């Protein structure tokens, strides 16, 4: 036997009564924050509190697409940094995150969409992110399965091609970061539920869990879709968030047929082929807030109809598994990252919608710096909660699906 099997994130330990930092949520943003707290700031007395197991939520339920072709000047640099970090992390963590740098193709189905793409591309290029416009024929050369005929519901006019994007093995990122963080002394407590945060004189004093009270001066809530409910429940802070179930599905595995990530706003559909050969596809969110993570008959049928039109070869494949996760959507489709504002020592990193995966590495790094130094890094400043009061919403609609329950 070449490889010895030993626990990847240390032996299970008992929860201590105090830590320097407590991170609520065992998803990617917490793990990345913990990793960088330890690595770049030497803060290792950190506990991650996870109700289920690490990667239970969005971290394990996304379709693993990474890209940096967001729309606004505040967002693009953040996503670019995250995109550049994948090969670095693979090396640092000594864990193959399987970054498949295959490029993303956003299909455009109208002249208006083509114009919007031009603007998007201009922003991307300004920030040094490779992105360009191609016509339908070029798109067909990249993705031979594409139907570029005129007689489909939404004929393809062209596409925005973003070569540095691609797919990363999402589970590997969870386990890799957990491994890296645990190695430096971070404790990961699974099956442990946070039930409250104690404050005194406007300062965080402790986190209450079902396994006991933990004294701490700093706490971060980055619990994905559950963040808004926890933050309101623990501290009474209301957030401009709607939590929606978002679904994704995979087909039975095929030999290579799709070499790029293909997405279409008009069809509400994206598709890419995983390394295992499955076609992973999704996009739809329920049009009303809920925490069910249940899939719907309505959606799987819609998805089949959409794929039948723009990737008709896929009519011959079978859907094998569909699942749901949570997306915490904000009105401007940009996240909320804030700290030391409402309560001293309380930090939040939420409202990521369905962008949480792509951004986790860079955000973890900056949140770690925020928490370690108690000063907000410039790059995170525009994402403060106050922006909603000040009418500085971001208009981040580079997203594939640009709706929240409010529109």
């Amino acid at each position, binding site marked *: 036997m070449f490889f010895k099997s030993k626990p*990847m994130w240390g032996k299970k330990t008992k929860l201590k009564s105090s830590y320097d930092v407590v991170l609520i949520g065992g998803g990617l943003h917490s793990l990345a924050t913990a990793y960088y707290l330890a690595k770049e700031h030497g803060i290792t007395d950190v506990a991650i509190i996870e109700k289920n197991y690490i990667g239970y939520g969005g971290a394990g339920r996304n379709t693993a697409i990474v890209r940096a072709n967001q729309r606004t000047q505040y967002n693009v640099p953040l996503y670019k940094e995250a995109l550049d970090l994948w090969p670095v992390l693979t090396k640092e963590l000594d864990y193959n*995150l399987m970054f498949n740098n295959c490029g993303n193709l956003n299909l455009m189905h109208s002249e208006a969409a083509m114009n919007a793409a031009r603007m998007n591309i201009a922003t991307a290029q300004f920030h040094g992110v490779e992105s360009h416009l191609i016509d339908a024929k070029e798109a067909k050369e990249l993705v031979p399965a594409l139907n570029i005929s005129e007689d489909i519901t939404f004929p393809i006019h062209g596409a925005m091609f973003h070569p540095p994007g691609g797919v990363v093995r999402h589970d590997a990122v969870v386990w890799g970061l957990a491994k890296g963080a645990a190695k430096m002394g971070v404790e990961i407590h699974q099956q442990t539920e946070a039930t409250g945060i104690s404050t005194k004189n406007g300062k965080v004093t402790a986190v209450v869990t079902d396994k006991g009270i933990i004294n701490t001066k700093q706490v971060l809530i980055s619990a994905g879709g559950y963040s808004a409910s926890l933050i309101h429940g623990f501290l009474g802070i209301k957030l401009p968030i709607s939590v929606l179930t978002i679904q994704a599905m995979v087909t*039975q595995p095929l030999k290579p047929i799709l070499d790029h990530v293909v997405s279409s706003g008009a069809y509400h559909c994206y598709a890419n*082929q995983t390394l295992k050969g499955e076609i992973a596809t999704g996009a739809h969110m329920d049009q009303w807030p809920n925490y069910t993570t249940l899939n719907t*008959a309505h959606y799987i049928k819609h998805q089949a109809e959409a794929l039948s039109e723009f990737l008709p070869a896929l009519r011959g494949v079978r859907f094998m598994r569909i699942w749901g996760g949570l997306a915490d959507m904000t009105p401007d489709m940009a996240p909320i990252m804030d700290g030391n504002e409402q309560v001293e020592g309380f930090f939040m990193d939420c409202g990521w919608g369905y962008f949480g995966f792509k951004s986790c590495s860079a955000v973890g790094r900056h949140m770690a710096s925020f928490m370690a130094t108690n000063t907000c890094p410039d790059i995170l400043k525009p994402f403060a909660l106050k922006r909603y009061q000040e009418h500085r919403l971001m208009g981040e609609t580079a997203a594939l699906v640009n709706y929240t329950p409010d529109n």
Partner: protein
Amino acid sequence: MMNRFNHLPTLKIDTSEKIPFTYKGKQYYGTKGDTVATALYANGVRIYARSLKYHRPRGLYSMDGECSNTMMEINGVPNVRTETTLLKPGMVIKEQNVKGSAENDLMGFIDKMDWAMPAGFYYDTMHKPARIWPVAMKQIRKAAGIGKLSPDHHMPGRYDEIFPTCDVCVIGGGPAGMTAALAAAEKGLRVILMEVRPWLGGQFDYRTAEYANRQTCHDRAVQLAKEVEKTDNIRVFTHTANVGAYNNNLITGFQVGTEKDSFTERYIEIRANSVVVATGCIERPLLFENNERPGVMQAGCALRLANTYGMLPGKTGVFSIGHDLGLEAAVALHDLGMTIPMIADIREDGQDPALLKAVTDRKITLLKGWVATEAHGRKQVKKVTLKSLDGTAEKTFDCDVLVASAGFTPLTGPLVVNQAKLKYDAHTNFFLPTDLPKKMHAAGRLLGYENAESIEASGQLAGLKAAYDCENCSIADLGEAKKIMESVPGPARGTKLVMAPVKGRKTFICFDEDTSIKNVKQSIDKGFDVPELIKRFSGAGLGPGQAGIPGHNLPLFTAKYQALPDIKIRPTTVRPPLVPTLIATYAGTNHTMLKRTPIDDLQRKDGGIFRNIGVWQRARYFSKDFTSRKEIENVRDRIANLLGPLGQPTHIEKVGRVVCVGGGIGVAPLHPIAKGMKQAGNEVVTIIGARSRELVILEDEMTAIADRCICCTDDGSYGRKALVTEPLKELCIIPGMTTGIFSGKPHGCHGGDQPVPGPNARKVTEKVVNIDVSNEAFGFSECKEFKVADTIPVKAMRLGCG
């Protein structure tokens, strides 16, 4: 080709009719009624495919399609489950994922490389140095995947969709399901019964064991099926797999069409008031070394090969089983001529005495407390090693078939995806459903009942509970059924054995992903200690068959390996679709999502270039010069975009026989057409449809003018329970008739509006309409209803001021 039995009452094949097909480029013949897999089996094929990772030979194992063992490419469509696909003339069948052939696969050597590929090995390799990863990734992509699909693949066949409603939907057409359907139907309810196999009967269908009073189980299945078929208010969908169940009882599935149907497959979405789930059980795989070697198969599979498809699975069969069905299969196969050197039964006691006697009478050796530990033979089973459960005694037998089955596992899928919980039950060794959703009931073998009487009693009770949900059953009737349920034998005891006493290097817990027991142990040691994480890390249960094979064994083994108490045994999550379903089938008719204007055809003829505007598709340009200069000039100087008349008036002449089909309010515009057609001397048949009785309109008027008027409703509350297309299809197949078909749709559909802009607008308009459009008579912003060319009713609004 093997000689097939043709005298068994249970057969579903017709040996007099041969069906030709092509396999690996050569022509072979199957028999009518064969599945692709059984036709190949009859032609001596034993290795159907190679496994995903290790390229191990794989053969017929379960016949229920819960693994990828027999997936092949048929007529260019990849990953078809040959064991559940009926053979059709001219099918072209190819093997998948092989270099060479399934028989001689050049990649077979990988099987010996497993030491280099522990669970999750790819996470620890191929990234140092970074530049090798892109190269390695390319190779991984090539090696991964099973079927091949060409990017320009065109999916053959016709796909349809229906959305019926009913009072009670019964999933599963076995004895419990049929009893439940009959019980609910007797209370006057509209029942839908869906069954995954092409015929009703479930497990009774292929069993010749005694049911009662010399009647066999098969006889009983036939009797129940006849009763179901003659009950008008039960609508039966056979060859219909249930794929999803959602709250408020929305049930989805898909049906495979027969030669007589107009569809290849159709998507079915049922809204039911109450649901009965009687999906029964599949067999739980037995875990031992090489437990998936071709020649190893489950008891139900071996029995059905003989009883349903008329062939013996092999010459000599060793049995290693843990349930009475195994003994029953051994006796039946022995009687049909198979040599059975030995039956190893996991159970020390608890066997049916009658079966024990039958085994003894036939002088078959039965060893209690024994189990198969290894199948030998490089490509097929040639020999098997059996051991006592404690591993002390050992015997070896030559054989070409090893029937191996640890027990049963219930098909709780529809309940679980609709949020029922599963709880481990030590008596049955089942994950039994608890906390069933509202108006959803379970019945039959999936609750652990094995006795025929108990199965039917539970079906009766569930059917009445469903009727009670619909307020059509009294408490007294329900009480009666409950009393009967209490008097019949309870759930049978299930075998506990998880794994034969082996190390598990080549003991596969998941066939599709080649996950061995060793891989599971490695995952747990690495800290992936819950089944859900083991699934993700080792891949077990993530293949084309999903949790079909590992669903039961994985949580049991995980708990055992970690020495957890029963209460901590947690099942893995089941996710829809419960049966992998073609994208083509889900898409159904896949009608265009956009609406088209009444003058769509004309504009297309004129070379219109169309764009989508809201939900409408409209002509945006009439030349490739997208500046629209000509149109703009026309609007300024003359008139533009006038392309009327708005659709053609119906062309009425004598053609012979005319069918006028309309649904809902579409019946209204159909009425004058039908009348005109009759006046022109045609034989007129009208078919009118509506969702339910209350929504049928103009029936009397239609009856008065037509020679025949057929009324259909979706829910069967009036006239025929059918879509209008069903009687239409029947009418259309009468040969020698000249037939014209008109379909009605409501006029004045909003959005089909046409602007008439330009200084000459009034001049043109006044020529074609029957009202005064002068500045005085038709004011600015006024809205009027009138007719264009005396035929087309329109609603118009004046927008310009000139």
